[in-house]
């Protein structure tokens, strides 16, 4: 620091010693730094290795051909389709289902049957006590035709992205419900 400052203060402070680092402190910093560098070199690659799944770019899912447009009615119907998935080193085909119908304006939409309460599988008209509703057998969650949550579940049923091509319905990624108001 400035010598001027030192001269002013010299009357009641030891001269020149003030800002100097002790040998002990220097060695502590040097050894500590070297140790931290080596430990970092060992541990950081492993941590990056471990968190890799989180940092992977999520790939946009492909659309899967599910059913002819002509088979879709006003009443929700269950269709299953197969999704090829690559899970790390393991390739498999997952069997998914969707409840598809067309609404009053003729727009086709597909609901995911995975209950938004705790992830059981809901069904349309699967319980006599709840006519014309999606009902979850686990804890009695209820949803409307549009997937709007009526009881138990905190959110409406998810939707599949829908694409119509050459009279076929194609389903894509699962997205949050856009219909339930």
């Amino acid at each position, binding site marked *: 620091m400035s010598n001027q400052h030192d001269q002013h203060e010299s009357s009641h402070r030891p001269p020149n010693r003030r800002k100097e680092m002790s040998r002990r402190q220097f060695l502590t910093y040097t050894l500590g730094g070297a140790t931290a560098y080596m430990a970092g070199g*060992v*541990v950081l*690659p*492993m941590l*990056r*290795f*471990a968190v*890799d799944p989180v*940092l992977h770019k999520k790939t946009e899912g492909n659309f899967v051909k599910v059913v002819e447009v002509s088979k879709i009615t006003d009443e929700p119907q269950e269709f299953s389709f197969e999704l090829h998935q690559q899970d*790390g*080193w*393991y390739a498999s085909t997952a069997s998914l289902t969707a409840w598809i119908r067309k609404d009053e304006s003729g727009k086709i939409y597909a609901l995911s049957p995975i209950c938004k309460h705790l992830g059981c599988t809901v069904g349309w008209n699967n319980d006599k006590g709840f006519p014309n509703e999606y009902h979850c057998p686990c804890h009695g969650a209820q949803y409307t035709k549009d997937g709007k949550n009526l009881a138990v579940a905190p959110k409406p049923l998810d939707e599949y992205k829908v694409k119509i091509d050459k009279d076929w319905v194609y389903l894509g990624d699962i997205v949050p419900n856009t219909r339930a108001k």
Partner: protein
Amino acid sequence: MLKSVYNWVDERLDITPIWRDVADHEVPEHVNPAHHFSAFVYCFGGLTFFITVIQILSGMFLTMYYVPDIINAYASVEFLQTKVAFGQIVRGMHHWGASLVIVMMFLHTLRVFFTGSYKAPREMNWVVGMLIFFVMIGLGLTGYLLPWDNKSYFATKVTLEIANSVPVLGPIIKELLQGGTIVGAQTLTRFFAIHVFFLPAVLLILLVGHFIMIRRQGISGPL
């Protein structure tokens, strides 16, 4: 900041004597490379331990992706090595470290042998060191099978044939290690269990004994 945290804990738990006991001890002149450069030979034990720590850490992380199963083992190793970030580095550490541990341990053994450090009163520590040596060899052997490729498969076959050649007990030892009559699914799970649970546990116990004894008896004197 760090210091005040340390002081806060120390006031309550009096931790200073604990680490002092472990870390604060004089390094005699004849083992200090700053005094005699040739004293670097006294570093091999510490280096063995350092690499062992890296082996344990990298091994723990590898098991996040590895499966000990004959269908998936090779695929999982290939996946973690080629698709996971730093997979090549982490598996590389474990792969090269495995050889390096043996090298360092061997050099450490040579140093102990040629400085006569195994003599009284340190005979027990020599014996524990030899046990560590065998455990390390066991770790190397069992780890070698885990990638489940051609090299590891046939290396294990050869090793088991060697075990088989032991008089009288040979066939029993072989079948016990193999977990069946062929080198297969049960051998892989068995070797995996031995590699990640049994031998490391034994190793840690032996290392604690090794270190307690060296602290009790001190480093052997100059030649």
